[in-house]
């Protein structure tokens, strides 16, 4: 038994490919737990960052600087009364949030956090991701229909039309990136997520910069389409609260509503991961070809540790600046504890074996975090598109450009 468990460690592939079920299960637990924690962290970060954009403080009461707010929210949502509208279709009403949740979590099966840090590596990785994430449309349609109310119905019609429309441009942008993988010496492209990153490694370039404007335009199209795909501002019409109160999940409350939120944020992280994998070199550290050599490797491998130490320093500054009043004692202690844990993690990350293993995951996560920040930034800055304008952008702007980029990439790949 122990042999079976450890047999994966000697292999140089993902647990799925190694066929080691136990390790695959462990990975699944780690990834899904990690995503859930990331969603909670994202929740807190969004509220704090958005608040600071808008000269507010955001959550401050629950825990130091509102750090425990997501947990308090989760408890509140779980204990809330669960209301099902009188004439709703109970079964469909039940299943809709689960579909969205499953669709957005199933995607994580193929996301490569590192060359071996993925649950499995499918031959059709990117196709699987797009396919499974497109299933969440079903959940949206069903949620809107099952609520038996006008606002959710209109919201879900809008939402599904939007998601399907932007999937087209998104898919074409993805295809142009996949086309670039076929420019290997071997001459065959790949749909596997790990293969795509490895192709970037072999070609010594992030696809963002490949064929310079082309890769960048494809990336930009994907970056726009993915915001629309996840129904976030400025494309958040399905949930436009000033028009349709909350769109397709108007009638939902409590646990089921929180499932929608969980699914939405998980989907945001998932599509960001696709963008990172396809255009930003996945787990590769910055400048893999320019700044080579053992010294640079070492310098970049110290990054995660320093990041955590600086976060700890920020937390400690917060501790020092906390008002010296008995009322704040617990908060101060909590923040100090949080800072100490961060610092400890930072120190652990300096230990060579950990350092080397954690690097890939760190760079991948850092790139995804950049996209998450962009999501918050969009939300703070942009007004909302109107439905016809949204459709116009999708079909008349993004689609032709992505087609042109696809053809351009093909031509460039042939010629160069």
């Amino acid at each position, binding site marked *: 038994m122990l042999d079976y468990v450890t047999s994966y460690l000697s292999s140089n592939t993902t647990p799925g490919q190694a066929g080691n079920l136990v390790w695959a299960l462990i990975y699944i637990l780690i990834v899904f737990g990690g995503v859930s924690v990331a969603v909670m962290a994202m929740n807190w970060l969004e509220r704090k960052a958005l608040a600071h954009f808008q*000269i507010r403080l955001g959550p401050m009461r629950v825990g130091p600087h509102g750090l425990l707010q997501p947990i308090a929210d989760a408890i509140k949502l779980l204990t809330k009364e669960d209301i099902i509208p009188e004439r709703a279709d109970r079964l469909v009403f039940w299943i809709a949030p689960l579909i969205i949740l499953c669709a957005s979590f199933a995607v994580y099966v193929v996301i490569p956090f590192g060359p071996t840090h993925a649950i499995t590596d499918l031959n059709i990785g990117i196709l699987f991701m797009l396919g499974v994430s497109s299933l969440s449309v079903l959940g949206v349609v069903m949620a809107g229909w099952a609520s038996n109310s*006008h606002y959710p119905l209109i919201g879900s019609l809008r939402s599904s039309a939007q998601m399907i429309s932007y999937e087209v441009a998104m898919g074409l942008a993805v295809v142009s990136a996949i086309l670039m993988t076929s420019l290997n010496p071997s001459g065959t492209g790949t749909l596997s997520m790990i293969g795509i990153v490895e192709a970037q490694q072999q070609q010594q370039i992030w696809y963002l910069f490949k064929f310079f404007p082309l890769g960048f335009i494809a990336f930009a199209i994907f970056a726009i389409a993915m915001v629309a795909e996840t129904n976030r501002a*400025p494309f958040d019409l399905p949930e436009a609260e*000033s028009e349709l109160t909350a769109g397709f999940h108007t009638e939902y409350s409590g646990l089921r509503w929180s499932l929608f939120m969980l699914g939405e944020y998980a989907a945001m992280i998932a599509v960001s991961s696709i963008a990172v994998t396809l255009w930003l070199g996945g787990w590769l550290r910055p400048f893999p070809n320019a700044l080579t050599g053992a010294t640079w490797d070492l310098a970049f491998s110290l990054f995660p540790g320093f990041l955590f130490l600086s976060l700890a320093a920020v937390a400690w500054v917060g501790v020092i600046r906390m008002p010296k009043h008995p009322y704040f004692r617990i908060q101060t202690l909590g923040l100090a504890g949080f800072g100490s844990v961060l610092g400890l993690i930072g120190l652990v990350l300096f230990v060579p074996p950990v350092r080397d293993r954690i690097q890939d995951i760190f760079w991948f996560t850092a790139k995804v975090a950049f996209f998450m920040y962009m999501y918050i930034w969009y939300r703070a800055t*942009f007004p*909302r*598109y109107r439905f016809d304008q949204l459709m116009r952008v999708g079909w008349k702007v993004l689609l032709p450009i992505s087609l042109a980029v696809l053809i351009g990439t093909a031509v460039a790949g042939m010629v160069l």
Partner: protein
Amino acid sequence: MPDSTPHPSPLELGSPDKTFLDSNELILNMGPQHPATHGVLRVILKLDGEKVLGVECVIGYLHRGVEKIGENRTYAMFNPYVDRMDYVAAVSNGLGYCETVEKLLQIEAPPRANYIRVILTELNRLASHMLWLGTHALDIGAMTPLFYTFRDREEILKIFEKYCGARLTTHAFRIGGCLYETYDGFEHDVKKFIDFVPPKIDEYEELLTSNRIWVERTKNVGNISAADCKALGVTGPVLRASGVKWDIRKALPYAAYPDFDFEIPVGANGDTYDRYLVRMQEMRQSLRIIRQAVEGLPEGPIMAKVPKVMKPPAGEVYHSIEAPKGELGYFIVSDGSTQPYRVRVRPPSFVNLQALDLMVRGQLVADVIAVIGTLDIVLGEVDR
């Protein structure tokens, strides 16, 4: 002048809600509990998919019988009630009422009082426009301007609070002048404020004016022609954005407005974007008026000679002022007793709201939100 559009026929709400696909007509009830109706307005939308075939407003959820209350209170006692109509522009409401009763009593407020009135009402106009901008932008999906405008509106409210002790329902003026002398440092505060605000207005404009999404959401949305505006009695920034240079401050000057030099911004197309620009310009013009007023604030009494018991001669009077939202008029009939025989208010929001149906027909649901926002209605005033 081109003829105005004939008033559209009312919705037939009696017809049953047929199947979604077949008749393509969907009756959607928006409000009274809806985040974008600015209070308790209920709008019944008749939709063809996303296209609006017509709207009908159901009002009265905030009806408090202000006009009727006026008949049972003395002239001085009724004064605080008017603050509760347009609660975001309470000072303007008070000014309108006080001036109307002054007209009825044939007394004149002293110049210093008039200057203080102008300063406070213009500050109030700024506060009202800031609130409008924040909520309007929030309706269109831009969250951030709301907090910026509230931050700056707070400075105005602080001045109000220092002046008369209240922030929202100020009851700042009395019949015959002002009750309170300016506090020490009033001029300093106001001057500091008018130096502080212009960069903030630039900030709002940076966020919105050239923002592509904002422009696309507001240009050619909710158009209304000058003729339609006149036919419906629409006043205020909505009228001016349609290209009519009508501002009571210039047309029928009151208080100390003849003394000041300012411009009336007008728009050209009468769409939501023009209304936005007009209001932004108005904010700057208000600052100009305040600067002139605070620099030329005369010395002297702040209260005219007003009888202890106000018994105006029998008769009737109509007086209107330019409130932030349009023409605010008071019609008071006196029978010679201490109480008015009839008080009738012509609230700008109520009249402007009539134009909603005309403005949104043929547009999309999202535009209804934008148009309600751009009309700048306050339900306290619509329902009274």
